[in-house]
């Protein structure tokens, strides 16, 4: 029954996108010690990493893009939109690449650390373009990349817990990840 499966997929996507949005919104209230442009916790990555490992990759791209668009519409501005989009896409493609080609050799933690670091690298690229000064992005990069490692560890551990809890939801039959779209 294609229409039935499609409805499930839409429900699943809606849930994941709203979860990612809520996390991006929530992390604005957590103060960060240093004033570095583009520094973020990247809590939405918890959803992205979990989806990437437990749901098909095509759907994750939809979650990434919708999350960025909707968050920018609700609370952001043009600048934060470009920051999130570049960081989000770079992080997504990096994680998909590693997950697709080296699935057996990498753990959830490795993937999430890579994703967080790439997210910050993407933000640095936007910083370089916006200010027109690549050198400034370079000054900030060691700090931002190190921060990315720390947030990556946090995101990785959190997604392991998230996946465990999601299995319960999956068992209830509403979110069977084996059901493909259409």
């Amino acid at each position: 029954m294609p229409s039935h499966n499609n409805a499930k997929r839409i429900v699943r996507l809606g849930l994941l996108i709203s979860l990612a949005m809520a996390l991006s919104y929530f992390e604005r209230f957590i103060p960060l010690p240093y004033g570095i442009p583009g520094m973020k916790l990247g809590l939405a990555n918890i959803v992205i990493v979990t989806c990437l490992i437990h749901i098909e990759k095509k759907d994750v791209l939809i979650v990434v893009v919708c999350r960025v668009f909707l968050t920018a519409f609700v609370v952001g501005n043009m600048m934060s939109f470009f920051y999130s989009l570049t960081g989000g896409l770079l992080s997504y493609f990096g994680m998909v690449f590693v997950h697709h080609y080296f699935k057996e050799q990498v753990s959830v933690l490795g993937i999430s650390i890579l994703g967080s670091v790439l997210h910050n690298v993407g933000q640095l690229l936007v910083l370089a373009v916006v200010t027109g000064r690549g050198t400034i992005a370079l000054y900030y990069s060691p700090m931002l990349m190190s921060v990315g490692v720390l947030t990556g560890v946090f995101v990785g551990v959190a997604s392991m817990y998230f996946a465990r809890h999601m299995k319960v939801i999956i068992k209830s039959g509403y979110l069977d990840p084996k059901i493909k779209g259409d």
Partner: protein
Amino acid sequence: MKKGDAVIYLVIALSILSVYLVNIPPRGEGLLIVEVRVHSEVVDRFLLTETIDKAYQTEFGYNRIRIENQRVRMVEADCRDQICVHTKAGTQARDAIVCVPNRVTIEVMGEGGDIDAISQ
């Protein structure tokens, strides 16, 4: 830890180390220059030893910088995030303060523009 993880960590560690090494300020007691840019155009150059308090009203917004006691700071900005105002003061070559929404950058650089030699 799996083998692929080790490779990922190694690549990340090496890239952090290499950008860190590139960023180490050059030795020497040369004069430090503060360069203020709006949208990548240089609008002002000061010596870090000067005492300056200057406001910039541009098409992107309002910013005010202050140089005193060999420290440069962004003291005021009308941007939303206020990250530039909270950035620590620039005191040595390759320190930078950025106001992304207003496209204003303040860079401290050594005399002779060694930084430009790297970026171009």
